[in-house]
């Protein structure tokens, strides 16, 4: 069974459209994340949720809105897509947010969603 899954794997859309990416984890973790990986492979955190509560928002444009219906799901909705939004988006999960000092802060990543905005 896949630990962290994302759908869709590929998303091609026109500028100005609205799209969503879904993420689910079956690890029983309390914390979930969204990362953006640009064309140069740089990984940057966007959001983090712990027990369905937003704990990190890294100055992401408000066109990006995460939603966590329960601890196992964290979806990302993007309004008015722009060319610069083209990237690979990764969902991840961990048992606790950040370093718990106990080795429970390992983050497990999903396979990624490649978003292309034309």
């Amino acid at each position, binding site marked *: 069974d896949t630990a962290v899954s994302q759908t869709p794997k590929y998303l091609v859309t026109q500028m100005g459209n609205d799209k969503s990416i879904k993420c689910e984890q079956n690890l029983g973790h309390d914390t979930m994340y969204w990362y953006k990986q640009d064309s140069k492979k*740089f*990984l940057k*955190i966007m959001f983090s949720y712990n027990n369905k509560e937003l704990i990190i928002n890294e100055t992401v444009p408000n066109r990006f809105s995460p939603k966590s219906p329960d601890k196992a799901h964290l979806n990302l909705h993007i309004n008015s897509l722009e060319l610069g939004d083209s990237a690979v988006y990764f969902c991840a999960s961990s048992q606790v947010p950040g370093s718990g000092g106990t080795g429970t802060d390992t983050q497990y990543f999903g396979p990624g969603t490649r978003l292309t905005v034309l």
Partner: protein
Amino acid sequence: QQQVKQSPQSLIVQKGGISIINCAYENTAFDYFPWYQQFPGKGPALLIAIRPDVSEKKEGRFTISFNKSAKQFSLHIMDSQPGDSATYFCAASGYNKLIFGAGTRLAVHP
């Protein structure tokens, strides 16, 4: 202060050689330093990690060396294999998140 600097950007090693990737950080609040491995088309996966109270950690062919006073840590891959060809990211944990280095693309030639 939240940056993690990683070098080199890319690395070519012959099969059987040693691959070395270096990282440096500034913020002493970081308290967990993992390395992630990413193959093309896949998500990053934890490879090995170290806490700052340990100077070295070894798992198979992979070793992390940690220098707390210099605020530097490195990944050594012994007997590098073509299957090790991937992008490697160092990271530092703090402030409820992981901060990643820019990544190193490793190519191991047969």
